[in-house]
């Protein structure tokens, strides 16, 4: 136990992240079920009232994004995989890495206190002022400190991993020989490094306004209400790419490994796709503010940048699909998750296009359409990528094999569940159903769609339960998996044991000039 808590080994730090993220995911998922049940009928439902509903919404959003998606992809996956993929024995700063996971765990605990403290935060994960700073009766401080802790953890992680990727690659490993996942993590951490402090600053000022009587965002005393929204989305839109990029990276690793193929158009996907998203992603945040009363020309300007971001995202998608071409595809559970993401990413991405257009968004903003859109692109695609990755690297992490049949059954249920849940919500979203509604007495005609969605959410719950059972059972009693069950050409499979020992590699790897993690013809 002690050797786990005080560990500085990146693999154990990664697993600690994984446990935290799955805990956050489970609790936030239960909140989602409560939300869906509340919406079963028009009028009051199973929850005690709108306040409890709002707290559930707040927790679901904050925990899924800050506690599950970002730490799951940049905390767990990056920690476990990056050093091994680049042939390093650990990260640049192992102790700081341990500090990161500690801060993250404290953040999770603070977030979970929502269920214990009186007057929990009810300010949604966006925490818009002046509601959050002047009017909410909830303890917004818990939200602010959660952002601080997880944000600080993220900045430390960024420094650590960027240094690791730059300075600790195996001898002979050039930039174009890196795993695609390494590139996406580098992109995600550059975004985190630059933009997280802006969010931290904005919520800090919110905290000062609420508890210390300052007036940074009080309009009567010279505060600018819109500035908070701008600062918030200045980080939080790029945050979507912090989630999406590593998700695409993980998908690429799974797809190339399971089809024993190289990355389609590697250089374009890296330098155009990944870095294009990083560059453009910072200039599109105003599309979250299309209806907020900003100057019209500003909305038009950001409409253009938002639409153009479809170019790098399109290049990434082409590379994902292209990597299947002439491949030799074997369907593991991880690969099923990865293949389904090709559909989910289309659904989520293409429904983003109307939301980039100012004219259509004037109607669609703040409706279920937006909600379904970001659940598909950010929530489900990233979750499926992460779950696929957990299945894919499960043999590496535990040295044991999960039950493939149960994995495939739970995947099928999961895939059906997400579509049953969210597809009807697109429909009523276009009809005008607003987000964050405890009651929809003005739209009783949407009750049917809400009920289908609620049924869907319980299908997901069953799938998740089966998945967790599968993992826990396999970790304890799974059959030995061997060093490289998928026949991958990547260093963590070819050179490290399952599970890898301290220092990762029995002998430190060096790579030759024609080595790439995707060179299956040579291997």
């Amino acid at each position, binding site marked *: 136990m002690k050797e786990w808590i005080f560990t500085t080994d990146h693999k154990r730090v990664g697993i600690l992240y994984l446990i935290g993220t799955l805990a956050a995911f489970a609790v936030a998922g239960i909140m989602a079920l409560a939300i869906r049940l509340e919406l079963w009928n028009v009028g009051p439902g199973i929850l005690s009232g*709108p306040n409890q509903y709002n707290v559930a919404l707040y927790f679901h959003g904050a925990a899924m994004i800050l506690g599950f998606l970002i730490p799951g992809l940049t905390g767990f996956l990056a920690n476990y995989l990056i050093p091994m993929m680049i042939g390093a024995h650990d990260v640049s700063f192992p102790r700081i890495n341990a500090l990161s996971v500690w801060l993250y765990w404290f953040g999770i605990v603070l977030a979970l206190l929502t269920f214990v403290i009186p007057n929990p935060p009810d300010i949604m994960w966006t925490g818009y002022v002046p509601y959050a700073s002047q009017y909410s009766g909830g303890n917004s401080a818990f939200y602010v400190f959660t952002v601080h802790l997880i944000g600080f953890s993220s900045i430390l992680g960024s420094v650590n991993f960027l240094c690791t990727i730059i300075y600790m690659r195996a001898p002979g490993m050039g930039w174009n020989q890196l795993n695609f996942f390494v590139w996406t993590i580098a992109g995600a951490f550059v975004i985190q490094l630059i933009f997280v402090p802006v969010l931290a600053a904005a919520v800090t000022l919110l905290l000062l306004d609420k508890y210390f009587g300052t007036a940074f965002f009080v309009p009567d005393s010279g505060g600018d209400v819109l500035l908070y929204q701008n600062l918030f989305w200045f980080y939080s839109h790029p945050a979507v790419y912090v989630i999406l990029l590593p998700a695409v990276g993980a998908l690429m690793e799974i797809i190339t490994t399971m089809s024993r193929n190289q990355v389609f158009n590697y250089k*374009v996907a890296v330098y*155009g796709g990944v870095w294009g998203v990083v560059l453009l992603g910072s200039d599109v945040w105003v599309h979250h503010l299309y209806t*907020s009363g900003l100057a019209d020309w500003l909305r038009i300007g950001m409409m253009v940048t938002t639409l153009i971001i479809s170019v790098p995202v399109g290049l990434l998608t082409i590379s994902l699909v292209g990597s299947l071409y002439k*491949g030799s595809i074997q369907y593991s559970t991880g690969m099923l998750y990865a293949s389904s993401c090709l559909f989910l990413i289309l659904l989520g991405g293409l429904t983003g296009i109307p939301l980039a*257009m*100012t*004219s259509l968004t*004037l109607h669609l903003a703040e409706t279920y359409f937006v909600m379904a859109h970001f659940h598909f692109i950010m929530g489900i695609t990233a979750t499926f990528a992460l779950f696929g990755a957990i299945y894919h690297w499960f043999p590496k992490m535990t040295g044991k094999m999960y039950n493939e049949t149960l994995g495939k059954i739970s995947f099928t249920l999961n895939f059906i569940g997400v579509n049953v849940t969210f597809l009807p919500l697109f429909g009523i979203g276009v009809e005008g159903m607003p987000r964050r509604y405890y009651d929809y007495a003005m739209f009783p005609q949407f009750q049917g769609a809400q009920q289908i969605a609620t049924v869907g959410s319980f299908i997901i719950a069953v799938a998740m339960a089966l998945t967790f059972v599968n993992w826990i059972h396999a970790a304890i009693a799974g059959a030995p998996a061997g060093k490289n069950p998928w026949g991958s050409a990547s260093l963590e499979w070819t050179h490290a044991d399952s599970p890898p020992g301290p220092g990762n590699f029995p002998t430190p790897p060096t790579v030759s000039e024609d080595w790439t993690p995707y060179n299956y013809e040579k291997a």
Partner: protein
Amino acid sequence: MRIKAFSVIAGAAAVLALAFPGDALALNDHTPEWDKVWMHLLIDVGVIGAIFLVVSIYFLLAYTRKSEDEVGKLKQMSFGNSLAWALIPAFIFMADDFYLAAQGWKLWNDQRRVPEGAYEIQVTGRMWGWDFAYPNGVISSSDVEYDDSGKVTGIDGDGLVVAQGKPVVLRMSSTDVVHSFFIPDFRIKEDLMPGRITYLWFNPKDAGKHVYTCTEYCGIDHSRMYGNVTILPQAEFDAWLASQDEG
């Protein structure tokens, strides 16, 4: 459709600079135009989505592993091919983006350019209800009422009442937090903030009732901040306004 797209791109600058006649705007109702742009968009993204999906499914089915030692046969691309696979898709995506932007451009102008002489009503959002102040000083409100169990029992106040066939411009502000005024049937919404003024306009063509509701999270009764836009023929509207003035 592609040909049309390219011709639009060719004249993109001209299209963007084109000023639409103000008078025609005044008579435009956003809803049919919005629905038209929406249909265009659905077809457009539907085609893109279908192409990607068909190709993906074909690859997933066609390239399954035939033997244990089989490996993928994707070759390293030549520099020219690689560049072509970047530039051609980029060009197609950009062309489509600008085509869509041009599609939405006229609608956007309709939505944001308030016609001259529109009937002006001052809207104030508050936690959790709406006040509508008419030019003659009449204030009409709407507040949702609900019983102890939380079940909505009705709406207190007439809410927004407007005359049929006359463009209405809403000048909006909030007394407390950020709200957002949304009329789904008219396809418009805009936020209300303390200390700032925002606008919204619509053209109520036919008499009838439509829901308006708050779409920016504003606390406990966010979902109970709605009411009805009632569109009356001019004579009835005048009578209503007069009756409010007396009361």
